[in-house]
């Protein structure tokens, strides 16, 4: 493991034909390694998620985070791009899958790639991480408190989102789930439901559920930050990726 990294924004092409700003970070060290697609949260391609991407690169992986709001324009303030995308109803699931597929393909094309690619997301990205792993061949998926993997969005919910229950049989990768017991989206009952479905389907998964933690407990710049849960969560992520994305 090296603390020397590169990090920059490049362009990749989504399966939709759109050019995507993509934040990539890699260890400077040589050698084969796995790749990780980071799915940013609803607030967008922001500093906090880029910090997260660099931390995963520091763990020893090539990382790519596509800007899911690239279609709103280039070089925008992330909050402005997020607001524009939200006003249009959010990111359609099919578009998300195409964008993650392009990022995964980019990672596999790198000379350092060992061929394995995982995906991780927080909040809306948690659900999208599971969505990607149900529709793409991946080697690891991490869902950090993603809502509406199970459960039903409220009546009149204007974003283009449904639960993923009917897609879970297609889950292609081991799933790590990290949840706060004080969260309501997803609620502990919904985490129980997901746990039961995955068990019934015989899918490989592991869940870690934290007391004194609600939604967004990893977010160091928000009041929801919970240091004990976040520290243990990062250890679980490190171990999970080492097991599933290692050489």
């Amino acid at each position, binding site marked *: 493991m090296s603390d020397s990294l590169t990090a920059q924004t490049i362009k990749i092409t989504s399966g939709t034909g759109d050019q995507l700003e993509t934040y990539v970070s890699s260890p400077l060290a040589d050698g084969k390694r796995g790749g990780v697609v980071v799915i940013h949260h*609803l*607030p967008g391609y*922001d500093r906090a998620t880029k910090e997260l991407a660099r931390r995963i690169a520091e763990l020893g992986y090539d990382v790519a985070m596509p800007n899911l709001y690239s279609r*709103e*324009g280039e070089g*925008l*303030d992330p*909050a*402005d*791009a*997020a*607001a*524009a995308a*939200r*006003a249009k*109803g959010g990111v359609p699931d099919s578009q998300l899958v195409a964008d993650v597929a392009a990022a995964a393909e980019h990672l596999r094309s790198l000379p350092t790639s060992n061929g394995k690619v995982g995906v991780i997301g927080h*909040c*809306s990205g948690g*659900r999208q991480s599971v969505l990607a792993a149900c529709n793409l061949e991946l080697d690891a998926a991490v869902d950090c408190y*993603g*809502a*509406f993997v199970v459960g039903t*969005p*409220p009546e*009149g*919910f*204007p*974003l283009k*989102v449904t639960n993923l229950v009917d897609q879970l049989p297609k889950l292609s990768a081991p799933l790590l789930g990290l949840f706060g017991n004080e969260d309501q*989206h997803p609620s502990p009952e919904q985490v129980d439901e997901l746990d039961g479905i995955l068990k019934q389907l015989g899918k490989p998964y592991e869940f870690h559920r934290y007391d004194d933690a*609600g*939604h*967004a407990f990893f977010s160091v710049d*928000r*009041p*929801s930050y919970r240091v004990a849960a976040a520290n243990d969560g990062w250890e679980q992520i490190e171990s999970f990726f080492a097991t599933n994305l290692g050489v």
Partner: protein
Amino acid sequence: MCTYATLTTDLEGSAKGPASKWFHVTNGTVYFDHPVHAMAEHTLNIDFADPSKGPGARVAVELTAQSARDLIAAIEGALASAPAEMTV
């Protein structure tokens, strides 16, 4: 996905926004969700925007739920204090 509902409405007016410039406001977006900047877990967020000028043409506010209710009361009070014929 943590938001509850995103409501949009047409607006007619102006806002002073990026680079301290005034711009014509045509759309409002209102939702209750995690804020970008305010120190609260959830806030009532309003975007005053002109989408035709791009995503940057926006004035954003993030208010605690109580502040949002106070603002509604203040707006209603201000409108009620003016002669009805002026606020049609």
